């Protein structure tokens, strides 16, 4: 389930209230949750495909608020991330825990239109690669040979996890609404591996007249054993994920894609046949295929780019290949949230034929705005094949008015030259850039005021997330904020990893968050002090109503005044003169 909130997809909505023409899920609460997910297959250390864990439930936290799926910004909706997700595997027959861990925040990648027929409304699918951290093993793990093996081989208290998400439903009139499908796999993680991406060998997309027929295929050659992940690459026929081979799409193609080499004259030499299975296969294997190569083929494969080919009436033709030199480079974490002046470090992993290469230059373009800058446009990989570059941010100067900060991107790659990255023959797509939301600089006022400081900020959240004002309370209403002060201090003080962290979109800069807390924390007790207004607002009647409401809240909280019969109503505003002192400085 991914009940994304959609008003913040449109920049104009930051300054306008909800209306009937809003996008399809304006009351979304951003909840992400596993529904009916199970362990659907295993690939054990000795190749076994049976295990006690098959059928065990894969779920999220059983006793915590739900995880949240959010975008970075309306100007960058291509990096949806899942925050605050706990992954659990449980044996449902006993209720015993097998394992539990915290899913590390990562953006999806490799987005493409996988689904040929999409009555659900969304033909695209994406791929999440991340790790589950602080893994705890429970008693049920003892009963699963594969889980015990996983426990014994994984490192760093982590597990590697990959989720292919597709088949998302936009239609509102059935139980699928805001849900989609996920097929994935969990395996060991090893020290030195990146955290949010697989950087191994990659066969690039198979494209016909601009349409992607198969997405990129990551693979690994270990001695003579070749493992390849079709899980995200294959097109699918429906929202369940029924795989489609190119053989099913093109009359002239008579085989599933096969592995081989492209000779200097352009011919395809077959090295190993592959079989694309059905939906059951996809669920049992996650789309991961493992084959043994003949030793001479393996030897050649270790130092020669591989390719995919299909058999046609003209014989075998190549349809997709690794880069010409077998080099593949990709950034680990590539999404950054930076307050003005903050820095971050990007890591680009570079491999050749799957092996890290040292001293290889990675080039960066100049950033799309000077609010962000990489320390260099040419950075060499270290001994483990990682190029590290510092990103430094500057105040963007509020170019977007009501929307804080600016989205800045930096392209990178191993081709081209410093400042002129060539994206060709890279295995990357147009979304493979470093992207940052750089926040506007902000000085925290010593004494934040409701109308000058709080209302503009909270009004925006009220506009963007009507689920709050419709179902909880109006975020832009003074009375509501004062009444729910303790709650607001609590949610705005959470650790950003906490599923309850507010704002859900994690787009509030730290100084603005501190300002909000400073105001909320100053609201204790003294209702008069709380009502001081820095400048005369436009809507004086509204201010008076706010004032009455705040006084009512004050009286309700300090009690004992029922006996005085002094509960005020807005209509008494005219008969009860407002003391000028209460309005503090209105001239």
């Amino acid at each position: 389930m991914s009940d994304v909130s959609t008003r913040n997809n449109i920049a104009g909505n930051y300054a306008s209230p909800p209306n009937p023409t809003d996008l399809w899920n304006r009351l979304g609460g951003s909840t992400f949750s596993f529904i009916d997910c199970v362990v659907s297959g295993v690939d054990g250390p000795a190749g076994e495909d049976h295990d006690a864990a098959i059928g065990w439930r894969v779920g999220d936290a059983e006793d915590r608020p739900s995880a949240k799926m959010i975008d970075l910004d309306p100007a960058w909706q291509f990096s949806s991330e899942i925050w605050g997700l706990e992954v659990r595997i449980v044996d449902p027959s006993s209720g015993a825990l097998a394992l539990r861990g915290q899913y590390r925040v990562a953006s999806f990648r490799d987005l493409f239109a996988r689904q040929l027929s999409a009555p659900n409304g969304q033909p695209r699918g994406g791929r999440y690669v991340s790790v589950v951290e602080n893994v705890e093993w429970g008693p049920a793990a003892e009963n699963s040979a594969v889980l015990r093996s996983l426990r014994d081989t994984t490192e760093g208290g982590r597990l590697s996890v990959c989720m292919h998400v597709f088949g998302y439903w936009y239609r509102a009139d059935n139980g699928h609404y805001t849900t989609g499908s996920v097929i994935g796999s969990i395996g060991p993680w090893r020290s030195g591996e990146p955290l949010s991406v697989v950087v191994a060998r990659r066969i690039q997309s198979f494209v016909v007249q601009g349409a992607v027929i198969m997405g990129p295929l990551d693979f690994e050659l270990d001695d003579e054993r070749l493992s390849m992940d079709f899980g995200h690459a294959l097109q699918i026929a429906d929202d369940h994920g029924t795989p489609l081979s190119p053989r099913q799409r093109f009359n002239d193609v008579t085989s599933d894609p096969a592995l081989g080499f492209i000779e200097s004259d352009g011919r395809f030499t077959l090295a190993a046949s592959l079989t694309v299975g059905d939906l059951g296969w996809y669920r049992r294997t996650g789309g991961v295929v493992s084959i043994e190569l003949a030793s001479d083929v393996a030897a050649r494969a270790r130092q020669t780019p591989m390719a995919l080919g299909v058999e046609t009436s003209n014989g075998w033709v190549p349809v997709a290949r690794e880069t010409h030199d077998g080099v593949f480079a990709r950034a680990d974490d590539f999404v950054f949230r930076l307050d003005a002046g903050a820095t971050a470090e990007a890591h680009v992993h570079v491999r050749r034929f799957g092996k890290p290469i040292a001293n290889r230059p990675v080039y960066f373009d100049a950033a799309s705005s000077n609010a962000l800058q990489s320390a260099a446009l040419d950075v060499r990989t270290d001994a483990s094949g990682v190029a590290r570059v510092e990103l430094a941010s500057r105040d963007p100067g509020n170019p977007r008015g009501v929307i804080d900060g600016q989205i800045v991107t930096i392209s990178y790659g191993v081709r081209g030259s410093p400042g002129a990255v060539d994206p060709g023959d890279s295995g990357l797509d147009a979304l493979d850039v470093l992207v940052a939301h750089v926040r506007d600089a902000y000085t925290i006022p010593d004494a934040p005021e409701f109308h000058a400081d709080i209302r503009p900020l909270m009004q925006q959240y009220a506009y963007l997330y009507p689920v709050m004002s419709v179902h909880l309370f109006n975020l832009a209403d003074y009375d509501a904020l004062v009444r729910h002060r303790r709650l607001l201090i609590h949610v705005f003080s959470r650790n950003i990893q906490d599923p309850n962290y507010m704002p859900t979109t994690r787009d509030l800069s730290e100084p603005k968050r501190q300002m909000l807390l400073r105001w909320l924390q100053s609201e204790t007790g003294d209702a008069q002090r709380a009502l001081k207004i820095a400048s005369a607002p436009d809507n004086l009647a509204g201010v008076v109503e706010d004032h009455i409401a705040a006084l009512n809240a004050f009286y309700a909280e300090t009690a004992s005044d029922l006996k005085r019969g002094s509960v005020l109503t807005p209509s008494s505003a005219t008969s009860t003169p407002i003391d000028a002192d209460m309005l503090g400085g209105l001239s």
Partner: protein
Amino acid sequence: MIRLAVGLTERIASASAAADLHDLVQAAIQLEFATIPPYLTAMLSLHPDKNREVWSIIHSVVVDEMLHMSLACNLLNAIGGRPFIASADFVPTYPTALPLGIGDLTVGLAAYSPAVVKSVFMQIEEPEAPLVFAALVQYETIGMFYEALKHKLMELGSAAFMGDPARQVSDTSWFSSSRLFALRTPEDATRAIDLIVRDGEGTSVSPLAPEGTLAHYYRFQQLVEGRRLVADASAPNGFRFAGAPIAYDSAGVWPVRANQSLTGLDPDSLGGRRARQFAYVFSKLMRALQRTFDGEPDQLDAAMGLMFELKLAGQGLVSVADGVDDDGSLVHLGPVFSYVSFNE
């Protein structure tokens, strides 16, 4: 008024050790909790943009009941017991007689109406009359139950309060310290029990709860009378339902199905999915409460977060129409308080 089975106060009076009281306090926890789903259902049935005042009044009672449940859990922990919350046995299947009750009051899950307030909510919170003359005691009251508990705990003394103080829940993020506090001594227990009783019933001479707000019974009565209860020196008991009118729009209520269950719901329908989502979030809340009151007081944050999530899940549910009932009128889905392990 909640009428309890005869013999409970006798059992309390004849207890010789704290352990003898454990199952009775567990039953009190269940009782405090069992009133919440009916109140919550009524709240959820109110359209979000209408009937806000009605909603606020019921909400204030729900908050108090959660507090009472928390204090009762603190009490059980303080006397060496352990609350059991996260199980299918904890929440009754509605409609139901209340835990400890003799079965003459059935509470169910229903859409809001002044009639429901009068016939159910006020019955739950009704104070006993100050003086009851009866030759044969056919029932005991919750007031008598708590009174007996109070006296027994004072009698057993501090020796009964051997529970680990670290299990006490007293976080001031959500409740003020005058309302949610650790129980370490018989005097603390007396204070907590008095708060619980007075919040619900007021006293024999005043409709006010300890903090000066109205006791639940009178808060609800305002909804039936349609006006706020305000101090009035000229009125017989010093109070009169002569305050501001409480706006109520009977068209602003979703016609939620009474005592909704998951059975019979088409699993592929929007309503079926939302009902199961509600049950899942509710169950997560039960488990968070279990941890909170079972040695991890810092989990209260998770529980409070889940209460908000439950509210959102509930709103998503009651807005879904689900056919018509026997007399042909439109019915919406109601909240389902089922205990489930997984999201389905």
